[in-house]
């Protein structure tokens, strides 16, 4: 792929709900050269951060840029059209549509038969192409949603816990797949499963109580005492 993908950069991004500060002062750059992971305990503000990037939530302060474009206050549909695709935490597919129809809805332009076949085989759903989404097993719904994100031909792919509820094999397949995207798409993954993150060898950012407490290669993070304390509940 020759398309150059601009950097997704967050500068001092904060978000509060009333007096509760969900995200405080987050600054980070996400690029396509490596996979990006956000980890942190429940309620650390990971999903809030993702919601702000894709426009579901407005930022309280700070800025989010995609290349030269400031997307901090943009509406969700506009951001999506810039090529920022998102996969939700709970698999969010259109249950009453078939697999193929799900792709047709999510594709930004009409899909050719070839493109469709390519996506179907990428996410291993060729045999299920006409199955209604509601009838797919949980794991395949996750894949379907990833496929939907791909059909948007995104520049940025935001994935919220893509392995939740997946079996060990499925989880491995997911990480293999994500690694193939390196360099082509900016991938940002929220995860809990440390084995999975280790597998990805991703650039990792740790959120705790809405703040970035560590950021760097996964090895650095793994040996960071503060991070271990947070995860094991030691204070």
């Amino acid at each position: 792929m020759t398309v150059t993908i601009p950097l997704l950069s967050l500068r001092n991004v904060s978000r509060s709900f009333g007096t509760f500060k969900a995200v405080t002062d987050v600054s980070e750059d996400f690029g396509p050269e490596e996979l990006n992971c956000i980890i942190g305990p429940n309620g650390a503000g990971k999903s809030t951060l993702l919601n702000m990037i894709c426009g579901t939530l407005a930022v309280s302060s700070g800025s989010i840029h995609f290349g030269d474009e400031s997307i901090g206050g943009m509406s969700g549909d506009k951001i999506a059209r810039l090529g920022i695709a998102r996969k939700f935490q709970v698999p969010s597919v259109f249950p009453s549509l078939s697999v193929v129809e799900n792709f047709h809805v999510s594709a930004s332009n009409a899909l050719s038969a070839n493109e469709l076949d390519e996506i179907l085989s990428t996410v291993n759903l060729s045999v299920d192409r006409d199955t209604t989404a509601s009838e797919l097993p949980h794991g395949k719904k996750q894949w379907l949603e990833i496929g939907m994100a791909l059909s948007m031909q995104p520049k940025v792919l935001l994935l919220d816990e893509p392995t939740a509820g997946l079996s060990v094999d499925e989880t491995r397949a997911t990480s293999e797949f994500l690694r193939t995207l390196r360099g082509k798409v900016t991938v940002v993954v929220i995860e809990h499963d440390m084995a999975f993150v280790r597998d990805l060898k991703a650039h990792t950012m740790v959120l705790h109580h809405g703040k970035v407490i560590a950021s760097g290669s996964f090895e650095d993070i793994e040996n960071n005492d503060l991070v271990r304390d947070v995860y094991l509940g030691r204070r």
Partner: protein
Amino acid sequence: MLTVQHLTSGYGSAKILNGVNLDLGSKEVVAILGRNGVGKTTLLKTVMGIVATQSGTTELKGQNITKLPTHDIAKAGIGYVPQGRGIFDKLSVKENLRMGLRSRPDGSDEIPEYIYEKFPILLERSGQLAGTLSGGQKQQLAISRALCGDPKLLLLDEPSEGIQPNIVQEIGSFVRELVERRDISVLIVEQNLELIGLAADRFEIMVKGELVHRGLTSELNNEEMLKEYLSV
């Protein structure tokens, strides 16, 4: 006290619990540990009848409560403090406590005095809307409310979440005190090892909807074991 056998449950097509077996003795405090999303909360909810059991049984003091509706499970003697505490924000503190009385077997309409003695703030703020309390006070209210029903078994879901360390300790010692004085068993889902150390007799570790490892609280400083099951 509580016997759970081969319990499976989940939401729609996603199965969360894959056959949980658990025995909880009288006056015993057991902690469930595990990563996020492995099914700890679902276990409590399934016991409570909020999530429907797909297969397996739950017995409380020999009574099969698997198929009972939630309100009858409450009346059978289980108090539940959910994650996020489940406070009725728009009711007053006292009204919240009065709601807790609904499941009392003796039908008493009096809030037990030991609760106000233990948490005087609840008496002080009696008429105030519960939504205005601080996080720690809400947790005290939630536990007190559950105790108002005079339960035999208390289910606590992450009581330490979002609470200052000193109150975490307070809650830990209060749980111990309850077990000693009021003849209660406690099943507690927790990530805070300090609280577990203070309150629990033993622990069980949950991975992908199954309890895979058990041990006494004293074993909790085993780094290898923690690393294996609880990540990093």
